[in-house]
């Protein structure tokens, strides 16, 4: 529900979208169906609704290096967590999620908003909510936005019989503050900051490590605190081209720091056609307790590659067809790649010489490569 200085009146619409996220076998494939509705009222109040249904198949790494995998499919069968290369396709997993939000234009300068969301999987349930306020200043040239969100999650893994400590609750909170400023007839600058904390069951109940030659479930600290800042510039370059540059810095007490740079452009090819593309470069350091293999058992330990040092890149192109005033259609094709950057005992590329070029184009050493396809139809009124 972020607001930007100079934001135009939103249009009411209903949008249906079908998305596929595909890592290839034996990785994860997600087929996602979404229904979004945005109703704009005459007094500037706004109602948002989003319904999501995911069907997840395939497998993701347990954390145990493939060469050292000692257990077969039996310990975790059916939950989509087998090590890569084991050639096993578990039964589909499903996720249903719903989000509802309402924005109330309290005065000409102040809008208040509230939202609630729920997400449910057979082994995970999340209830969340949030409130926020938007203050327009300086003849709507400056916009201040403040938001607070909280969630209560319940982790109920299917392998609880073999991992009794995998079950538990998690609470997360995040607050953010941003200011947007018009710096011209077609230029907006936004600066923001955020702070978040989480406590409770932070382990991924299916991830394992190899410690002292024995395969055990990972153990993470039960608290996490993070903060960071964002900056964004959106610029109308010509009548038919706008560009958008974003930067985010993030750091937390697990010793993960990340930087994200995203450059986007929207081009108007004709009255009917728009092309929207973006390139994102992301880099993160590893968590202090991350290693691919442990010689002994420390206080905290994880071999989850999501906590390892790596670089990730995204390249996405969307074509938008404004077929009529009421009907819009769009299609997206995107590629996402993660490459380990070493250090902290990250997964290596086997000692081979680093190849030059952006990982998105040179993905021979990628630890994760995924394609995203989506199509949507939107009715505007």
């Amino acid at each position: 529900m972020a607001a930007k200085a100079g934001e135009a009146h939103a249009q009411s619409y209903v949008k249906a979208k079908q998305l596929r996220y595909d890592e290839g076998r034996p990785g994860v494939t997600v087929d996602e169906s979404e229904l979004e509705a945005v109703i704009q009222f005459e007094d500037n109040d706004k109602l948002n609704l989003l319904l999501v249904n995911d069907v997840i198949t395939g497998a993701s790494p347990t954390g145990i290096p493939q060469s050292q995998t000692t257990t077969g499919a039996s310990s975790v069968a059916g939950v989509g967590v087998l090590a890569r290369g084991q050639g096993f396709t578990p039964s589909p997993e499903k996720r249903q999620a719903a989000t509802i939000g309402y924005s109330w234009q309290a005065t000409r300068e102040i809008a208040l908003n509230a939202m609630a969301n729920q997400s449910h999987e057979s082994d995970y349930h999340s209830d969340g909510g949030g409130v926020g306020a938007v203050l327009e200043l300086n003849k709507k040239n400056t916009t201040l936005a403040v938001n607070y969100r909280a969630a209560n999650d319940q982790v109920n893994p299917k392998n609880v019989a073999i991992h009794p400590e995998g079950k538990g609750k998690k609470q997360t909170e995040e607050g953010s503050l941003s200011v947007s400023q018009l710096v011209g007839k077609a230029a907006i600058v936004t600066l923001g900051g955020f702070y978040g904390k989480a406590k409770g069951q932070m382990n991924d109940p299916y991830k394992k490590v190899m410690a002292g030659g024995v395969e055990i479930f990972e153990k993470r600290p039960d608290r996490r605190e993070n903060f960071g800042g964002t900056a964004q510039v959106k610029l109308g370059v010509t009548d038919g081209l706008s560009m958008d540059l974003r930067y985010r810095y993030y750091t937390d007490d697990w010793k993960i720091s990340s930087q994200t740079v995203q450059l986007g452009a929207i081009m108007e090819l004709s009255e009917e056609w728009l092309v929207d593309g973006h390139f994102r470069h992301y880099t993160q350091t590893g968590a202090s307790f991350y290693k691919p293999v442990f010689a002994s058992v420390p206080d905290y330990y994880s071999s989850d590659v999501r906590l390892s040092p790596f670089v990730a890149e995204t390249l996405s192109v969307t074509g938008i067809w404004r077929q009529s005033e009421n009907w819009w259609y769009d299609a997206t094709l995107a590629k996402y790649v993660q490459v380990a950057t070493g250090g902290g005992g990250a997964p290596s590329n086997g000692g081979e010489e680093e190849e030059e070029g952006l990982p998105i184009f040179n993905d021979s050493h990628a630890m994760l490569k995924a394609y995203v396809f989506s199509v949507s139809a939107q009715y505007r009124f």
Partner: protein
Amino acid sequence: MRTILHKQAGRAGWVLLLALGLSAVGGCSESLEVVQPWDRGELAGDLMRPDLNTLEQTDWDHIYFSKEGSAGGFSTGGGGCGCN
């Protein structure tokens, strides 16, 4: 003790930096030429709208939340364990 002090100093530094940034934007806004409502044709167009395709951003946020070690800022991914 040293770690706690470092942590608090780091957090205070970020809060200070953010406050300075916000003040700078707020302060600059007074010296900037005010864009009047009748000059906002381009801002209201599809190319400049921040809400042109919000669902796409929501989807990407969820993918990054599920696959990376950090999240937050522009919006929150949320929902689901991202275990896969």
